[in-house]
């Protein structure tokens, strides 16, 4: 049996309670949302196995994942494992000698016999072929990174969902890139 002292809730009380609850829920959602945007997706280059899924599973038309180059690690080789197909018969720039399916890796003559390799981001699809080639046959100076000028920072990254090596992780927005060897 209910106590007589207990007040019945009026319609006004209900409205006040509802508004308060709404405010609390709204504030909570804002806090959660703010803390979520303080991190961004990034690839740990030490875990990446160059499976090629970054090219096929990003929600964007052209993947937000791009190849980047640690120039200090590069050997500036004439025959580059990241640039040339392993069975290439010539160390030239012919399309049939190149490993990249979109010719996104550009080579520039420095001095005999050294060449500089740079990534044309607008052509790079993040397939990691060059990364795997450089890792297997060179110094391992190429690696993949999520470019934050392109990434839409989905709550559930569609590449992370299929990444076979759990290389995708959230990192603080203040340090959004993981450099090779320092991740």
């Amino acid at each position, binding site marked *: 049996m209910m106590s007589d002292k207990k007040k019945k809730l009026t319609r006004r009380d209900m409205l006040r309670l509802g508004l308060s609850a709404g405010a609390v829920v709204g504030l909570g959602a804002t806090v959660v949302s703010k803390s979520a945007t303080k991190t961004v997706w990034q690839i740990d280059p030490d875990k990446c196995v160059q*499976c090629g899924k970054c*090219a*096929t599973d990003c929600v964007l038309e052209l993947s937000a994942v791009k190849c980047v180059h640690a120039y200090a690690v590069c*050997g500036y080789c*004439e025959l580059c494992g990241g640039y040339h197909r392993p069975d290439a018969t010539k160390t030239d720039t012919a399309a049939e000698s190149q490993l990249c399916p979109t010719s996104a890796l550009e080579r520039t003559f420095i001095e005999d*016999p050294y060449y500089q390799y740079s990534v044309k981001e607008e052509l790079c699809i993040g397939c990691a072929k060059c990364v795997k080639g450089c890792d*297997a*046959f060179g110094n391992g100076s190429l690696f993949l990174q999520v470019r934050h000028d392109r990434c839409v920072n989905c709550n559930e990254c569609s590449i992370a969902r299929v990444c076979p090596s759990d290389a995708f992780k959230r990192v603080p927005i203040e340090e959004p890139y993981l450099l090779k060897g320092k991740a």
Partner: protein
Amino acid sequence: MKKRVIPNDVIIVMVVMVVIATVAVVRMRQKPKGDVNPYKYDIEQYKKVDMALIGYCEVAEIKIDAELYGLAVDDDQIYVTGDKLLLLFDKNGAETKRIELDGAAKCVTVDADKKIYLGMADHVEVYSADGNCIDRWKTINKKSIITSIAVSESSLFVADAGTRQVYRFDKDGSLRSSFGEKDEQAGVPGFVIPSPYFDLLIDRTDQSLWVVNPGHRQIENYDEDGRFKKAWGASSIKLLGFSGCCNPSHLAMMPDGSFVTSEKGLVRVKVYNHDGEFVNVVVPPNSFDEHTVGVDLAVDSTGRIFVLDSSRSVVRVFEKK
């Protein structure tokens, strides 16, 4: 004014064309998905070796609890350098001496008098057979990264990946000469060293010097004054040649003058005859862990091949089948 009527057939054809175009555009914009990834780069195919080409079998291994760098053998002992360590083993693989060093010795060689020469980062240290430090030579260059040393009857040769040169010393540590620096006017192309792997050895048959020029995937022959004589080696992912940007990473010589080579990247150990013609495989790529590098080699007087597997921290011993 007469109203123009579009025939039904034309409308049907137009609708069908629009549908086909829409489906084509949608399908073209779709990224390939599913089990078959068109961008997957399969390098496993290059690791396959015909078993008939493998001419050696593994007969023993020496496990060592240290990070390993360099390897040498003579008639009695096996010499292994590790991080601040020089370890001596007898022919059965039993440890006979453990010498603490001040730094990392990346390479080691032994002369006929049992003096042990260690290639430290930028200088050479000399030890007696009982493990006492006899001499510490001057720093070659602040940029030096000594990767290999070899000793002849009268000289010690040092391969320096930092300065990309070979230095010739008298056995008392006096620098006599150096060669390998790029000199366009003199037509000297120089050694191309994209990574810190730069090996050399003294020919067992004529005491000349063989130096790996890894950026050219070649092994070059010089006299002791550094005059170029000849070279062999070709770039190829196939067994006949050397793969990748810069190989072979290490070199040794059999008693009959055949060469034993190891490569990084596609890690494999092979034998070539003295003219540089492929003979057979000692260790195929699938016999190494992924990302194994720094596979130093040595051969004893009976033709046993010693392979330093830095990834597993073991010295693996191979004999002809």
